[in-house]
């Protein structure tokens, strides 16, 4: 499986169809980053789509090609924030008249909670979690995609899971305390 760096080199050499591989690798991770901000699955699709196209346009400016995923997610977040701002403005413009046009469905609250925590992971850990659990890649495949040794990927996955577990446990205890009080 070609690494992200290799795919980017192909794309920049004119084999633009190879970009589809990057899109399929990171589409769910991109959607996750967008949905956490815009809270609307349709809007998240649009944001993710725009972000991939924007990333394609400026791909040649990416200095560290091994950090494509982190760079892409930065674009997603900025675009999502803009989309959210525009959406709020549109609603405030509409006022009473648009009261009957709600946005699309939000993700479930459980999903959002977990997404919040995934988004708080360091970039590299978030990417390996996304590739493993959102895209269904094996550790070997993640190692090939990211160009890192298998052992490093295993450690990053392990650390990420530990962090997520700890955060979820803390959150659970917090809820329990609130309910008791």
């Amino acid at each position: 499986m070609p690494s992200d760096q290799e795919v980017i080199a192909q794309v920049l050499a004119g084999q633009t169809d190879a970009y589809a591989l990057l899109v399929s690798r990171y589409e769910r991770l991109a959607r996750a980053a967008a949905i956490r901000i815009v809270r609307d699955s349709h809007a998240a699709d649009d944001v993710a789509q725009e972000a991939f196209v924007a990333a394609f346009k400026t791909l040649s400016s990416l200095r560290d090609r091994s950090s494509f995923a982190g760079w892409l997610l930065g674009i997603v977040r900025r675009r999502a924030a803009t989309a959210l701002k525009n959406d709020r403005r549109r609603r405030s413009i509409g006022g009473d008249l648009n009261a009957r046009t709600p946005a699309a469905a939000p993700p479930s609250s459980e999903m959002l909670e977990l997404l919040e925590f995934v988004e708080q992971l360091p970039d590299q850990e978030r990417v390996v979690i996304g590739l493993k659990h959102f895209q269904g890649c094996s550790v070997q495949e993640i190692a090939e995609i990211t160009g890192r040794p298998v052992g490093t990927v295993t450690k990053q996955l392990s650390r990420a899971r530990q962090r997520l577990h700890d955060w979820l446990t803390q959150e659970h205890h917090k809820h329990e305390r609130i309910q008791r009080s």
Partner: protein
Amino acid sequence: MNAFNDLEERLDQLGRELAGPPCFVDQVMADVAVVRRPQRRWLRAAGGLALAASLLIAAAIWLTPSPSLYAQAIAALDKAKTVHVTGWTSEPLRKWPLEGTVRQEVSENNVPVDAWYWNGEDRRPRSYERFGPVTLVRDGAELREYQSDVDLLFVSKGLPKDYVERFSSLSAVLEMLRKEGAAADELETRNADGKTIRGLKFARGERIEEYWFDAKTNLPTSYARRRLGNSEPKTEFQLRFAYDEQVPAAVAAYRPPQAKHVRYGGKHDDVQIVWKQHVQELAQRMLSEAKGETVSLLPRTEPKTFSLQYMMRTPDERFWVVPLDLDQYRPLSVKDFIRVRVSMAEGDHALEAWRVQKDLLGIEFPRADLVCEKDTPWQQWVSFALKSIDLEFVDVVEERTYWIAKHDGRKLKPYQQVKPPVPYIVKGGKEQKGLVKPGVGYFLRPVTMHELLSELTRLQNDDLRGRGPIIIDETGLPRAPRNDPSKYSTWEQYRAAVNYDQYLVATDSPYFVGEESQALAREWYEKEFGVTFEQEQREATIHVVRRKP
């Protein structure tokens, strides 16, 4: 299952929930294909696609018989560093076109055209277009148009990528015209300025357009548009194209001067502020000019038009302002008045309760604002507005067809599984959400049963004939409580408080317009929800708009 297994299961589940549309990769790659085509630079450079130049290029896409010739033309354009357009027109274009009578005055005379398209710093598309008294400059997303004859500056903001979309839509229009049978003829090759040029003539109704290309480079060289009238054909546009000329320093440095009047449009943030300021002024005018009146019609003084305007209360909450105007391009017709200004609310003046004679639908209101005290009955202000154009409405009671919606009691599917009967229109591998034909989703968001039935009623009565079915919801399906703005300041608050998602029943609302959609609608409702419509005749009050006797 230990805690980590549970976490892994949740992450896998999250991954499944994050799955997007199956064609997501294709959609992105379709957009990427547009970006990577060589015409990109030209398209971005040709920010002034409002100009006839855009028509010429768009037409070239369609008219050029060989795709390879088109590719050559595009490749040549891609290499061009600048495009310079000169000539004249009898129809100077204005982005803000409706200030006073100026447009009418100048339209009788030909005005010179001088336009430049190039890329600025950071490859930002820039353009300068001068049509007689109108000078329009674009710098990336910013647009500024100065109209020297009325000392007016129009400021607008958009997205540079919109140019591509606008370009695509122009091509789509031309393609549609071709399907409708508009004629295109290849003209005889000839020599001009030492070049061999070949032409194409395109006739549509009374309009004839001629496009000329350099036979060697395939670059566009000139464009002319004539209109056939009762007398001699009148030329409306005559343009010539030149490439790679040095953009004059004065053109590149041009900035519109300070103007007496400033208007805002597009995505510019100030659009809303401008409208609110106007509403505030109307409140003062109502107190000073229309003392004691419950309802008054206040003409636009300058005259002023707005790209964003909507019904709203004055800041002192004393009056409602109803703009008798649609946007800066179009006045408000009777049809739009009923659809947009009057029948927004449900109840006794909902859309289905209106009937307007066909010949009255297009009558336009003079641009003005209707201002009325906040508790004025709708009948009073609607009558007042109609009276201003010599119309009135009268109520008649007659038999109407009602559809009584019943539910067979089945458990509804999760809304994500219920899609409109006809998929979104796909062009170039991308779903064209917003383009509609019967049965296609057009709300572009999930909907409740109440919304579905309300929209079905509205679409069935959108022609204002007052003869479509009136739908009564007797499904017994739960309905979301009303959004009370005094309790919830945002839609999100309301949505969370009432758990709005539990009321959603479908991913989108299908476009069931006109009688021809009725069979499809009935079939879809029954199949997806177990909802059927029992037809009944009942008496109903119809508000009939007619000329005043």
